[in-house]
């Protein structure tokens, strides 16, 4: 009501609120779940819950973290989950705040990251104040995120809230993970508890088991794999935990099968001799895809260079190759916002969680391997070791190209960085932009948290907030966080830099500053070529509208102004090592640090 007074300039005397606040009970509910932080941008529509959280709840479990943009708050929750394995909640203004948050929620949906998004809303049109609070209300705020959340609800009583919140947590954290939304009425938060003879209770949370593949399908998949001449395992978000990595290694070693890690998570050690590039599918006779976003794209190619401006589809695999899929996303499909690619016919398809299915699949594979195949499988492993060593040599020689170039080569950038962090318990929390996958090609990644994957929905603006969120989790776990931070990504909502400094979140952000929206540069160039026209550059290096230069943004000054240790711009690769040493020291002292490095495009 105080906000109504301020916003409508219609002051009037309001009675004090008596009794126990409904939002205090909401805090009791929230505290039964393991939610450590609450990144949020403040808003009047959840003021009652906000007040209860910090005053009644003592600002602990969850601790309110001040964010400067709802997209940042959601992005932080996204990154936090991938480092900690536990979800956060956020509070947003139900209309404008949720609108700000949507792209980040979409990323979380596509990347299978659970979180609880609570939107404040003044439902009762006869009760809510006029003016801005009314403009900022809606009948169904969750409608704008319903296409990319697993579930949403609008509780109309405190008991309903208790059930909804525990249910929301349960749904979000059952594979396939995903964000959920709760519309929270301002009146329900603000009014005192009236139990009407029934005592309020908080349902007990019990985790739901993840879905496991059907026994018959598991056996058939095992039979195909055990008898294959050249089986290949393709993984994207298959390993949800460290145990998932171990299980994938076990399956691969049982078969001596090549593994293609698409990098949605750290699924398979980069140091393992069975790791292969995506071209490994070309000669496969059986392919197992686990939690793939795009099965079609894993076994087909699209060349954006066909006649009449239409691309050409080609197959990457041999005719008759048997395809197996284990993916929980098959249980989670929506109609409008599609989170699948072209239709791919699969021979054995399991709507199931890969990590939960792997133990049964491994046992079934071991049982299905014929005695006379064991020598051939062992031989396959010997050949794989030789091929892995040769590929590693080629990769390192490729990294040597343009080693001393200015702007700095992306290979040099990532290896100079690695030299400074390799003896720490590091975690690469994000790599926004595109550095030609050098970290996953050159850094030894053996633990699940060494690499947390990307945005999921390709929504630019994920990298900075997700890095801060993941660094928050890693801070509590004693890990050192590094992000490779692109320029375009940082400019979506750079205010998250302040949140990191404000809440003492140590993070080393090494910028891949190629001064452009490089993903888009070639799209325009491509169309200019198709149309036989010279691409107009204006005064920039890339086609008009794709560069971030003239003036060049001084990201180091931006970061410094928000409490970061920062340095730059670094254009000479020989200046990188000393600057990185200083930056690592700053991070080890608890401060976030940013190095603005001018880089090659990719």
């Amino acid at each position, binding site marked *: 009501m105080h906000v109504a007074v301020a916003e409508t300039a219609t002051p009037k005397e309001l009675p004090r609120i008596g009794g126990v606040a409904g939002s205090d009970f909401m805090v009791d509910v929230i505290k039964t779940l393991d939610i450590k932080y609450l990144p949020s941008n403040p808003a009047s529509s959840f003021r009652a819950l906000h007040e209860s959280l910090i005053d009644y709840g003592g600002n602990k479990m969850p601790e309110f973290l001040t964010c400067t943009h709802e997209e940042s708050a959601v992005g932080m929750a996204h990154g936090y989950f991938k480092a900690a394995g536990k979800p956060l909640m956020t509070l947003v203004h139900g209309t404008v705040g949720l609108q700000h948050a949507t792209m980040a929620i979409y990323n979380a949906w596509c990347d299978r990251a659970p979180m609880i998004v609570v939107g404040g809303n003044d439902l009762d049109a006869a009760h809510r104040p006029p003016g801005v609070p009314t403009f900022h209300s809606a009948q169904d705020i969750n409608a704008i995120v319903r296409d990319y959340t697993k579930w949403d609800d609008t509780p109309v009583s405190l008991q309903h809230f208790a059930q909804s919140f525990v249910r929301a947590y349960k749904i979000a954290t059952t594979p396939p993970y995903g964000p959920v939304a709760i519309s929270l009425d301002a009146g329900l938060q603000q009014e005192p508890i009236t139990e009407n003879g029934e005592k309020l209770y908080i349902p007990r949370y019990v985790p739901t088991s993840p879905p496991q593949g059907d026994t018959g399908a598991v056996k058939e998949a095992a039979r195909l794999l055990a008898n294959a001449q050249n089986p290949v395992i393709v993984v994207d978000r298959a390993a949800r935990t460290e145990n998932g990595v171990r299980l994938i290694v076990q399956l691969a070693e049982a078969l001596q099968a090549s593994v293609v890690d698409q990098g949605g998570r750290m699924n398979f050690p980069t140091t393992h001799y069975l790791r292969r590039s995506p071209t490994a599918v070309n000669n496969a006779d059986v392919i197992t895809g686990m939690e793939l976003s795009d099965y079609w794209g894993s076994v087909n190619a699209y*060349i*954006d*260079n*066909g006649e009449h401006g239409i691309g*050409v589809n080609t197959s990457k695999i041999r005719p008759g190759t048997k395809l197996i899929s284990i993916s929980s996303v098959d249980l989670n499909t929506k109609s409008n916002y599609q989170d699948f690619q072209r239709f791919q016919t699969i021979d054995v398809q399991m709507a199931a969680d890969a990590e939960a299915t792997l133990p049964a699949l491994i046992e079934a594979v071991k049982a299905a391997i014929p005695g006379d195949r064991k020598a051939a499988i062992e031989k396959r492993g010997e050949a794989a070791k030789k091929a892995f060593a040769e590929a590693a*040599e080629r990769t*390192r*020689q*490729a*990294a*040597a*190209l*343009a*080693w001393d*170039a200015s*702007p700095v*080569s*992306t290979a*040099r950038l990532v*290896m*100079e960085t*690695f*030299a400074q962090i*390799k003896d720490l318990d590091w975690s690469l929390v994000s790599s926004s932009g*595109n550095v*030609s*996958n050098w970290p996953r090609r*050159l850094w030894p990644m053996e633990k699940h948290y060494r690499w947390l994957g990307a945005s999921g929905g390709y929504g630019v603006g994920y990298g900075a907030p997700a890095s801060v969120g993941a660094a928050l989790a890693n801070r509590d776990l004693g890990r050192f966080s590094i992000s490779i931070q692109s320029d375009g990504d940082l400019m979506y909502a750079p205010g998250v830099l302040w949140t990191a400094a404000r809440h003492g979140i140590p993070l080393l952000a090494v910028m891949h500053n190629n001064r452009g929206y*490089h993903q888009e*540069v*070639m799209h325009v*160039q*491509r169309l*200019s*070529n*198709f149309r*036989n*026209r*010279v*691409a107009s*550059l204006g005064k920039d*290096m*890339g*086609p008009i509208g794709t560069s971030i230069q003239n003036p060049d943004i001084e990201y180091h000054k931006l970061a410094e102004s928000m409490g970061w240790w920062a340095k730059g711009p670094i254009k000479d690769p020989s200046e990188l090592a000393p600057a990185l040493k200083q930056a690592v020291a700053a991070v080890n002292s608890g401060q976030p640090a940013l190095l603005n490095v001018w880089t*090659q*495009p*990719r």
Partner: protein
Amino acid sequence: MRCAILAGLAILVTGSTLDGAAAFAASAEKGKAAFVRHGCWQCHGFQGQGGIAGPKLAPDPIAIEAFTAFVRTTNRAMPPYMEAVLSNEELADIHAYLQSIPKPADYKSIPLLNQ
């Protein structure tokens, strides 16, 4: 092999053009500017080192005939550059620039690549 096939095909189709491209007194300096102006750097890097978006072009670029044929007729990921967009003279200059790029050090001599 693919480049060789493409080169042969292009010579049949546009032989005089290829002769023209190869005939220019190429300038590596001008080629460096053209390499940037026409967006080659976007996928191949400023030194033609390549990356995830485009293959390595230098050092040791393919022969000018195969290079020209590919640029003019590619049906792969790279869109073709026709003469109206990129002249034969510029193409020859770009090739000269790529030829001027020195070989990298052996990775074994770079400590950071042997960590």
